């Protein structure tokens, strides 16, 4: 495959100076702005996690008081969910790659894209201010009436920060939807799109339809807290459970905003590192849409013990089983892609294997939780904590790192050091499992979440978990160091170091600002790797 020569002028050096970055409308630069911001919040969230796990080394509450501990897990959740997990893949990889994968010069609304980043930063600043001013202790879920009537902490600034960051999300989703509909290169029909694009399209649908409900929820909480308007206050005849309906209507689909882009990344990586077309392409594409749709119908499974009616709980339970099906479809199709592929084990692929294994564990435990009878026992225990960390960390963060490594040569024009990449993937995998597997056991044994003390017999598992967390934290630091190192000292990357399929790989590394001086014309299916999806000779018994 002929590769374009190394460029003199590209999007990174086309102009210099702080203004050229802060006023950029180039989707690739905006992606890097986001990269810096979300990495910062990952570290902030990580510090809070470290403090939580430090306290939990001992059964007594000897490191901090209960109220302080409440702030620790609250700020950990807020920083990680709203300012890292939700934006990371869409705003970093999505922003960079969506136009490139479809042969466009930019997103449909470049200035709106920049506004999205500024909204994120304003939201982030409100949140940081709230942290510095004493934090919030309501849990990231802000349940009423505690958050509206009783908490003495900085609820409103954080709520405001999340409100503003929510609009960042909405505008990103809007930009992606319009771009994917209106700016595909000639010949790029829907079913020739990379699955990364399908995943981001489905994600954008969730962003558009769900986030506004979170926004109005925050408005109502603020009105109640500041002006004592009665919406959720029982003293006024309001229903606190109504808040939970409002909150989870967004926050459950939000977890699909966090996982769908990750699944899009995995599809790209699996195809490349098995040198095969994705098995069942259209099934995978439609499963993304199915997750987006069905994901909106299950929110009540967060409320099985909150006081909603048993009949509603039954309906939500059944629907929650259904939502697992499209995810399973993806896992089966990735596995079938791997089968008889020519597999290689570069760093991104190590993250893929980590994802498939850990996401499957997380997803299966989700089925346990969908069962009403079982959830009643493990709700608000460490079983839940383990479940969602397997998906968010074992799933999303693994995919994020895999994607970051995979596209790093394109983004930076440099190769990361492969040996260090593989090492850190291994350290992260070990650290992750040591941190979170014991938590399944702890939850099953009955240790509740959000408590800074616990019965003595749980200490061994907690110590294992905290030890794992240090290994995991260390594991995350290694890529931070070598990725930054590689920006200056890494080997210059060719246009397509992985011989990967996809329009983004036809550009130089790094690409020019306009991506494609001449708009490409697409004539092939996606993933035109040497091996077709089906390679079984006639008469083969499987």
């Amino acid at each position, binding site marked *: 495959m002929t590769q374009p020569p190394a460029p003199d002028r590209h999007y990174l050096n086309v102009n210099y100076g702080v203004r050229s970055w802060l006023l950029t409308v180039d989707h690739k630069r905006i992606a890097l702005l986001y990269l810096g911001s979300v990495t910062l919040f990952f570290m902030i969230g990580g510090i809070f996690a470290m403090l939580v796990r430090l306290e939990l080394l001992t059964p007594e509450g000897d490191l901090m008081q209960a109220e302080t501990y409440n702030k620790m897990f609250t700020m950990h959740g807020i920083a990680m969910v709203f300012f890292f997990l939700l934006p990371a893949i869409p705003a970093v990889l999505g922003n960079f790659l969506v136009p490139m994968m479809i042969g466009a010069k930019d*997103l*449909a609304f470049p200035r709106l894209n920049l506004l999205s980043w500024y909204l994120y930063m304003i939201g982030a600043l409100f949140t940081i201010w709230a942290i510095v001013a004493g934090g919030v202790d309501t849990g990231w879920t802000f349940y009423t009436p505690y958050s509206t009537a009783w908490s003495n902490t900085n609820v409103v600034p954080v709520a405001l920060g999340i409100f503003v960051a929510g609009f960042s999300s909405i505008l990103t989703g809007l930009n992606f939807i*319009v771009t994917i509909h209106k*700016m595909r290169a000639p010949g790029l029909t829907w079913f020739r799109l990379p699955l990364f694009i399908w995943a981001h399209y489905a994600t954008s649908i969730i962003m558009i339809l769900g986030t*506004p409900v979170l926004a109005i929820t925050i408005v109502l909480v603020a009105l109640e807290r500041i002006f004592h*308007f009665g919406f959720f206050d029982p003293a006024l*005849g309001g229903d606190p459970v109504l808040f939970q309906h409002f909150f989870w209507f967004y926050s459950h689909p939000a977890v699909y905003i966090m996982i769908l882009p990750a699944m899009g990344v995995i599809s790209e990586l699996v195809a490349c590192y098995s040198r095969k077309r994705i098995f069942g392409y259209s099934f995978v594409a439609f499963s993304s849409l199915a997750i987006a749709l069905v994901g909106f119908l299950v929110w009540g499974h967060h409320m099985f013990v909150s006081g909603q009616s048993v009949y509603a709980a039954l309906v939500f339970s059944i629907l929650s089983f259904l939502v697992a099906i499209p995810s399973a479809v993806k896992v089966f199709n990735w596995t079938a892609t791997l089968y008889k592929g020519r597999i290689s084990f570069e760093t991104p692929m190590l993250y893929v294997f980590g994802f498939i294994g850990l996401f499957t564990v997380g997803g299966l435990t989700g089925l346990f939780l969908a069962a009403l009878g079982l959830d009643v026992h493990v709700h608000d225990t460490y079983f839940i904590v383990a479940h969602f960390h397997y998906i968010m960390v074992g799933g999303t963060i693994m995919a994020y790192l895999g994607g970051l490594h995979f596209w790093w040569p394109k983004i930076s024009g440099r190769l990361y050091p492969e040996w260090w990449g593989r090492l850190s993937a291994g350290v992260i995998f070990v650290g992750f499992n040591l941190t979170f597997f014991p938590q399944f056991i702890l939850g099953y044994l009955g240790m509740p979440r959000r408590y800074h003390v616990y019965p003595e017999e749980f200490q061994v598992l907690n110590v294992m978990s905290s030890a794992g967390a240090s290994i995991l934290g260390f594991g995350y630091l290694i890529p931070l160091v070598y990725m930054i190192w590689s920006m200056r000292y890494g080997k210059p990357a060719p246009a397509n170091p992985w011989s990967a399929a996809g329009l983004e790989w036809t550009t130089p590394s790094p690409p020019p600002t*306009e991506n494609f001086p001449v708009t490409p014309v697409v004539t092939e299916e996606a993933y035109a790797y040497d091996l077709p999806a089906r390679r079984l000779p006639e008469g083969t018994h499987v």
Partner: protein
Amino acid sequence: MSEAVSRVAHHFDDAAQQKDAATLGMWVFLVTEILFFGGLFLAYVVYRTSFPEAWVEASHELDVTLGGINTAVLILSSLTMALAVQAAQLGRRKGLIVFLALTILLGGTFLGIKAVEYHHKVVEHHVPGASFQFHGANARAVQIFFSIYFAMTGMHALHMVIGVGLLLNLMRQGLAGRFTPAWYTPVEMVGLYWHFVDIVWIFLFPLLYLVGRHG
């Protein structure tokens, strides 16, 4: 039809694609607004079904005449907005300015009447919170009604204020001759937004003002 200044941004193939994208983008934004206001409608539905008598009592405290006038004012403003867009489409600059001005005037009238209504509510101690006073068994639920009333109409009014700001900006651009039959996209987009805000009020009016008006 050649344009002295090309208004097609560098990342679009042509003006048609740019306009298509803008239109789709504005509609997607309006969909987010449906869900945003929709949350308030959810709160309304939940509490109205829980407290039907309180809803009747509370709704009677609102002025149907003022609310009805405001509804007519907004519908008229939608007409003038549609005519403004048409004027831009046909290159009639004076017509555009006149209809934009009328729309702004009508929007301002709506907000003025709303301010009068809010003033009544303050004087009658119907604003939820510390100063709320209502006599009768349903006082608690009536306070919830008014919480929802102020949240819904307040959010709507905020959108109107933003709309008026957008319209003033359009007038400024229109007076400077920025719009031609080949490019008047911002006028259309603000028009879509304005009509949406009108539609929200079309639902708010009967839900808030006309509950149990018989008897």
